[in-house]
C-alpha cells in the first residue's frame, strides 16, 4: 500500500500564494493565482489613479483611487471611514455591508470606480454615539453584539433588509410570495440576515433588536 498522506516530492517552482487561495500543488507546474503571471501578463499593473466622486453620508467626496480599489477599501483607507469592516474580502461574511442608493451591498465585492455619483451610506452616516439611529440604539439595548466587528455590517444590512420587506420583496421564508405585504417575522429576519455572520453568535439578540425596531420600539 502506498503512503496515503505523502505529498508529491521533488523540485517545484511557482509564484508565492499571496491570497492564500492557491489550489495547492496537486499536479505539475506552478500555481499562479488570479491569472496574473509573474511576468506581468495579466491586467494593468500600473494601477494609475482614477479620479472619482462619491456621495458618502450626504457629503460629496472626490478621491483618486487605484482602479483595483474596492469600495470597501476606498471607504476605509481613502476616506478613513473605518466603521465599515473587512472580515473576508470575498462577500462571505457581510461585515462590509453598506447602502448604495438605498440597497445593501457587500462593499468588498464592488470596485470604487463603479460608483461614480452613487449615494453611499455607511454606519457613520446612520448615527453617532450621541445621536443613535433607532437600530443602533436597539442593538445596544439588546446586547446584539459582543466584539462589535460585524456590527456595522449587521446594522447597515438590517436597514436595507427592512426596506426590502417594506417594499414587499419576498424571501425563502415568505409563506405567500404573492402577498403585497410581508410581516417582518423572526423567520423573515433570520433568512434575510443570513449574509451577515456574527462569530460571537449574538444572533438571538440581533433578531430581537431588529424585531424591536421593525415594530417601532421595544415590546
Amino acid at each position, binding site marked *: 500500500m502506498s503512503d496515503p498522506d505523502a505529498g508529491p516530492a521533488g523540485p517545484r517552482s511557482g509564484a508565492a500564494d499571496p491570497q492564500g487561495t492557491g489550489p495547492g500543488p496537486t499536479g505539475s507546474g506552478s500555481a499562479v493565482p488570479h491569472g496574473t503571471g509573474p511576468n506581468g501578463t495579466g491586467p494593468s499593473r500600473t*494601477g494609475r489613479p482614477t479620479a472619482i466622486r462619491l456621495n458618502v453620508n450626504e457629503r460629496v467626496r472626490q478621491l483618486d483611487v487605484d482602479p483595483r480599489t474596492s469600495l470597501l477599501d476606498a471607504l476605509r*483607507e481613502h476616506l478613513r471611514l473605518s466603521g465599515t469592516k473587512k472580515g473576508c474580502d470575498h462577500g462571505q461574511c457581510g461585515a462590509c455591508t453598506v447602502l448604495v442608493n438605498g440597497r445593501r451591498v457587500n462593499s468588498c465585492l464592488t470596485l470604487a470606480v463603479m460608483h461614480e455619483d452613487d449615494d453611499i451610506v455607511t454606519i457613520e452616516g446612520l448615527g453617532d454615539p*450621541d445621536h443613535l439611529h433607532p437600530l*443602533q440604539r436597539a442593538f445596544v439595548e439588546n446586547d446584539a453584539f459582543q*466584539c462589535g466587528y460585524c456590527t456595522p455590517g449587521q446594522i447597515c444590512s438590517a436597514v436595507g433588509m427592512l426596506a426590502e420587506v417594506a417594499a414587499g420583496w419576498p424571501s425563502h421564508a415568505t409563506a405567500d410570495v404573492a402577498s403585497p405585504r410581508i410581516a417582518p417575522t*423572526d423567520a423573515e429576519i433570520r433568512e434575510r440576515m443570513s449574509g451577515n455572520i456574527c462569530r460571537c453568535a449574538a444572533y438571538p439578540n440581533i433578531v430581537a433588536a431588529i424585531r424591536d425596531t421593525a415594530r417601532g420600539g421595544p415590546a
Partner: protein
Amino acid sequence: MIGKALDRVDGPLKATGRAPYAYEHQEAGRPLCGFIAGATIGKGRITRIGTENAESAPGVHLVLTHLNAPEQGPVDESAMDYWRAQPVLARPDIHHFGEPVALVVAETLEQARDAAARVEVGYDTARGRFDLDARQDGVYTPKEVTGGLPADTEVGDFDAGFDAAEVRIDQHYTTPYEFSLPIEPNACLAEPRGESLVLYTSCQIVDAARASVAATLRMDPGQVHVVAPFVGGGFGSKLSIHAETILAAMAARVLGRPVKVALTRQQVFQLVGMRPRSRQRVRLGAERDGRLTAIAHDVLMHTSPETEYAEQTAATTRSLYAAPHRLTGHRLTPLDLPRGADVRAPGEAPGLLAVESAMDELADALGMDPVELRIRNEPALDPERGVPYSDRHLVDCLREGARRFGWENRPAVPARLREGRWLVGYGMSAAIRGHLQAPTAVRVRLEPDGTAVVLSDMTDIGTGTYTVLAQVAAGGLGLPPERVRIELGDSDHPTSWGSGGSWGAANACTAAHRACGALRAKLLEAACGDTGSPLYGMDPAGAVFADGVVHIGGASEAVGAIAARAAPEGTEAEGRVRHMADDPHYSDYSINSYGAHFAEVGVDADTAEIRLRRMLGVFSVGRVFNPKTTRSQLLGGMIWGVGAALEEEAVVDTRSGAFVNRDLAGYLVPVHADITDVEAVVLESFDGRANVLGGKGVGELGICGSGAAVANAVFNATGIRVRDFPVTLEKLLPGLPPADS
C-alpha cells in the same frame, strides 16, 4: 452595581463604527501596506526566491524574505506559549502549507497584493505527513498537556472494573480541525518611534504580545508599546500574536515608517493555528442501575514536529462523573500541518462531544433517562484529585433545565416522534469547565473632579470587560457608572493575563475591587484626619460610599471634594490577583463552572436536513457580574456548540497539507438562519473559593457539551448515532427510517 444588567458602556462606539480596531488606528498618519505571500507546498525548502519583479512593481518599498529578514530571537519553550518568540521568514524551510515566504510592503494594499503575486519561489518539496487518520506511527505520550496537567491518569483498576461491568460502551469518536475565525482577521499597524515601536495589534493578551515581539525582534520589552483598545473577537486565535504582527513590526523597523499588515481570511486558516482533529475512544462500564464503575477516555491528536501542542481533551473527564476505576490518556503524532492552537474551550469542547455522546449511548443501552443517568453519577469529591468541589451545582442545572425545557415530553424510544416531514428528537448533555485564575493588576485613579479611571492592559474582546469593570469601580467607589472611565488594552497600564481561559472578568474585577478598597481607605484616612472635612475625627469603619458622596453617621462629604483637597493631582491605588498556583483554594478545591444543555432538532425524513428547533442551557457560574453580557457569552458558546455538532470542519488536502475549504464559504459556521430559539439561564450562586467576588468563568462554558446535546437530539430523532463529527446529512441518509414508518 455588580449584578446589574447594564448596557455595554462601549456599545454606542461599536454600534456607530467609531471603535477603532488594530488596522484602523489613525494616529500614525498614512501607513504603508504589507501583504504576505505564502508557501504553495506543505513541506520542503525554498531553493530559489526571485524578488526582482516584485521590487520593481509600482509603489513597492520593501520585499522581505528569509534572505534579508533581520535575525530573530530563538523560541524559548520554557516561556508560556503566548509569550514566546514567533520567528517568521527566519529560514528557507517550509513546515506547512501557506507559511510566509515573503512580505511585500507598498504604498497601497492594491500594489502590495499585486507585487506579492510576483515573488517567484522555487521549492524542493519533501514528503509531508498530513493525514492524522493514516498516521499511527510516531505516536508518543507528551510530558504534560495544556495547563501543566498530566498526560495520563489512572485510578483503581480500569481493566478489571470495565470487564466486570454489567453494561459496557466502547466507542470511537472523531472531531475535525476547527478554527476560531473571529470576524476581525488578525492585523497589526506598527509605528516606529525612534528605537521604540508602537503596535496597534489585535490580541487577547497585551503583555504576551509585547513579550513575543520583543523576543522575536531582539528588543527590550520596554521599547515595545502595545495598544489594543478594541479587539474584533479572539476565541483563542489572538492569545498569541502571529506573522501579521511580527512582519508589520519588522518592516516598520527596517523602513522607519508605519506599516500595517492584515491576514486575508484564507491566510487566517494557515497562520494562526487550529483546534486539532481528534480521535477519541471512550469506554464506560456501568451497573444495571446506571452507576458507573469504570471510565476511560483516550485521545490522539497531532502536534507540530517543531513545537509541541498537547490539548487537554480528556482532562474534564477526570472531574465530571464518579466511578471507582478510571483512566485518561493523551497521545500525539507529528504532522506537517500548522501547530494546533487554543480554540474556545480547548480540551473541553472536543472532549465533551465524545464523552457526552457516550453517556447518551450508555443511557440508551440501559433504557434509562439520560438526565437521570447523570444525576446517579454525581460525585461527592473530585474523583481523581480527591478534593471537595467548591460550589458544584451540576444536578441543579440538570433538574432546572429538564423542568424548563419540558424534557418529560422527550420520546423515550428514538425515531418515533414525527411532525409532518420532520423527525423530531430531544437531546441533552452536561457541561463542566475548570475555573482558572491568573495574575492581573488593575489601577484605579480618582481624579480631583470626582471621576474615576480604571487602568489595566486587560483586553475586551467582546467579553464585556469595559462594562463589568465600570460596574465594579462604580460600586466600589459609590459613583454613578458614567463617572467611571475604563482604559484597557495598553501596555503602559498595569499588567494582566488578558482575555483567555475564561479568566478575564473574574481576574480583572477582583483586582479592581481590591484597588477600590485601597482607594476608599486612602480617602477616608485623608477625610477623617482633615480638620477641614465634615468627616473629621469620625470612625471610617462606618463609612458608606454612595452617589459620589461619603457618609459617616449623619455627616457627609463629596468624594470629589475629599480628593481635590487631599490630592489635587488625583490619587490612585492598585489591586492584584495572584496565580492560581499560589492560591491555596485552587489546590484545596476543585473549582469549576457547570451547566446542562437541552436541544430539540428536526430531521427531514427524506433529505436528512437537520434543523435546530430550540435549545436551552442552564448554568452555574458563581456570581454573575452582568446578566446581560453573561447571557450573551453563554448564548454565543452554545451556538458554537451547534456549529461543532452540525457544521464546522476544516478539511486537509492530504496531498499538499492545505486546508481546502479555507474561507467562510467553504468552512461553515452558524448563520442567522441556523439559529432559532436559543436561551441561556444562570442559577443564582456565589463561589467564594474562586475569588472574593464569587464569580467564575463564562466565556467557554457555553460550548462545553452543547454540541453533544444537539448530536444526541439527532440520535433521538432518527435512531442514528454519528460518531464522526460534524453530524451532516450525508451521514444520516443511508440510515433514515423508511418513509412510511
